[in-house]
């Protein structure tokens, strides 16, 4: 069998090869999208798509900008997604903490009921939700899109799973030190759950970011549109503005990339190390 150093390099080489393969398969379509955003539509309709990005990005963007104020759209999407993520993170981490660390009546049924609604497809909820939102006269407001999924079943499920790895001894020692239950939550539980909170932020932000059918129905003015709705405007019955779609999509990736870069440093290794002697 190979001795230790040989196995080490073979492993390292294998991992890099695997990683490169995965990254190329992922990036090729993305790269093509960016290229498509930088060439005029006529060039787009040729079987030999250029390999290097062209120079049309700005002209395509101008066409998109005066077709539907896309800067405003990006602002709408970002604002809604950020406010939604923060609100939902609070709700989900509090509820997840309770489900992980406390015993209370009806705990099992309450949790499984929430899980069940996770299964409900948005397509089925649109009409009743539209009715509810219009009777609360929240139509055409950011709240109409932020509130419905703030109590996110996926979020509570993730937080419950992660909070279970929090040692009970930590909470008890805090109780002994005189911390109230709320202080225990935000002074001990939250700070030690940072990596899972970062993961939760990714889930919530992206779920809100790509929401299409529901916001489409409740946001009625173009000034309020989020990115998915704005881009779907470009798919007409007899007109498909391909290059504008590509420009819009490429720009839509930027906030998500920023989100990932911002959250990098919260994926701290072994944050729980040193808390409890194994």
């Amino acid at each position, binding site marked *: 069998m190979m001795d230790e150093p040989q196995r080490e390099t073979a492993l390292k080489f294998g991992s890099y090869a695997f990683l490169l393969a995965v990254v190329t398969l992922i990036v090729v379509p993305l790269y093509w999208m960016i290229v498509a955003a930088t060439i005029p539509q006529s060039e787009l309709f040729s079987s030999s798509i250029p390999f290097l990005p062209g120079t049309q990005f700005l002209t395509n963007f101008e066409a998109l900008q005066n077709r539907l104020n896309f800067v405003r759209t990006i602002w709408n999407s970002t604002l809604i997604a950020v406010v939604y993520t923060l609100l939902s993170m609070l709700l989900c981490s509090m509820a997840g903490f*309770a489900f992980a660390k406390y015993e209370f009546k009806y705990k099992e049924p309450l949790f499984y009921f929430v899980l069940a609604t996770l299964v409900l497809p948005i397509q*089925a909820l649109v009409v009743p939700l539209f009715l509810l939102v219009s009777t609360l006269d929240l139509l055409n407001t950011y709240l109409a899109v932020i509130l419905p999924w703030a109590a996110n079943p996926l979020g509570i499920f993730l937080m419950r799973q992660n909070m279970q790895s929090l040692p009970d001894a930590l909470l008890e020692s805090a109780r002994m030190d005189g911390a109230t239950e709320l202080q225990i939550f935000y002074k001990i539980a939250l700070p030690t759950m940072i990596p899972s909170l970062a993961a939760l932020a990714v889930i919530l932000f992206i779920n809100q970011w790509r929401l299409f059918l529901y916001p489409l129905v409740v946001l009625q003015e173009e000034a309020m549109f989020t990115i998915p709705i704005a881009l779907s405007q470009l798919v007409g019955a007899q007109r498909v503005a*391909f290059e504008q779609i590509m420009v819009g999509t490429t720009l839509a990736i930027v906030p*998500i*990339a920023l989100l990932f870069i911002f959250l990098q440093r919260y994926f701290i290794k072994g944050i729980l190390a040193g808390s409890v002697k194994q």
Partner: protein
Amino acid sequence: MATSIRSELQSSESYQELSDRLRFLRQNVSSVVPKIPGLPYLYISPFYLLFSVFLLFPTLYTIYLSVFSYEGPAGSEYIVSIQAWIFELTIPKISNLEFVGLAHYESLIFSDSVFHLSLFNTGFIFLIQVPLMVILALAVAIVLDSKFIRAKGLWRTLIALPVATGMVAYSTVFLLLFEGDVGMINQVLMSVGLDAVPWLTDRWMARITLVIAITWRWMGYNMIILLAGLQTIPQQLYEAAEIDGATMWQKFRFVTVPQLRPVLLFVIVSSTIGTFKLFAEPFVITGGGPANATLTVVQYIYRQAFVQLNLGYASAVTVCLVVIVSAISIVQVRRGGAAQ
């Protein structure tokens, strides 16, 4: 630089008094607050308040609708009208409904072959796509978690980006890649001498195309969640295993997997549910595919509700879907959770 500013700020007199006064204030408040008997309920009440208004009501409404057949919009009658102080809630009678009892369910279970086909399609895609994606996501997460990989942030962002692409653009890309003999993949295959694969026209290949599209889009997203899970595994466990002479594979089986079980369970259940709620990819790439071969259940719900306006029937399909998928996810949670 930021930390030095903070320490100067902290040492200045005024900051000290201010933070102390704040602290005492907080203590006064928390000592006044009576001992809360049902404390856990305090934690979950904000969640369940919003949940019951915005998710419970539509769920009950869907169940309510599923036993009616929708005959068209009603005039101005109301189902419920509540006047409570400033809060006034009136839910207009959605439509004149004709009670049909369990007729919808009966036809769904016994006679609706298109529904059965959509269930088969969704199940088929689920059985291939979820395991493939979870294994791939776990493999990538572990590679990215290992010490000797550099520029982890870059790889992580790149791999997770597909989830940010809009439905319209990414379908255009996939159509370009997989379209008949014009598509890029077939061009490459043909140039190498292989014959073109009917990606979108053959029923089975259309389903495979969807599996590829979904995996391309969601693998990175799940990888991020698994990576977060890997971070919380205490390093001493690996060191202990190292000392016992565990091989890479044994460390994976006896340290990583057991420790990662809760998060792994989360990824499996959420991708199962995500795949059963599949709508965007088939709707945009294959349009339900050749002869309904890639028609998913939610696409069938959309077709019934939005194209054929059978709201009652669509609600019945929804209820069936919810029952089937929550049964699967509860089994997964029980089996996954129990083995802890």
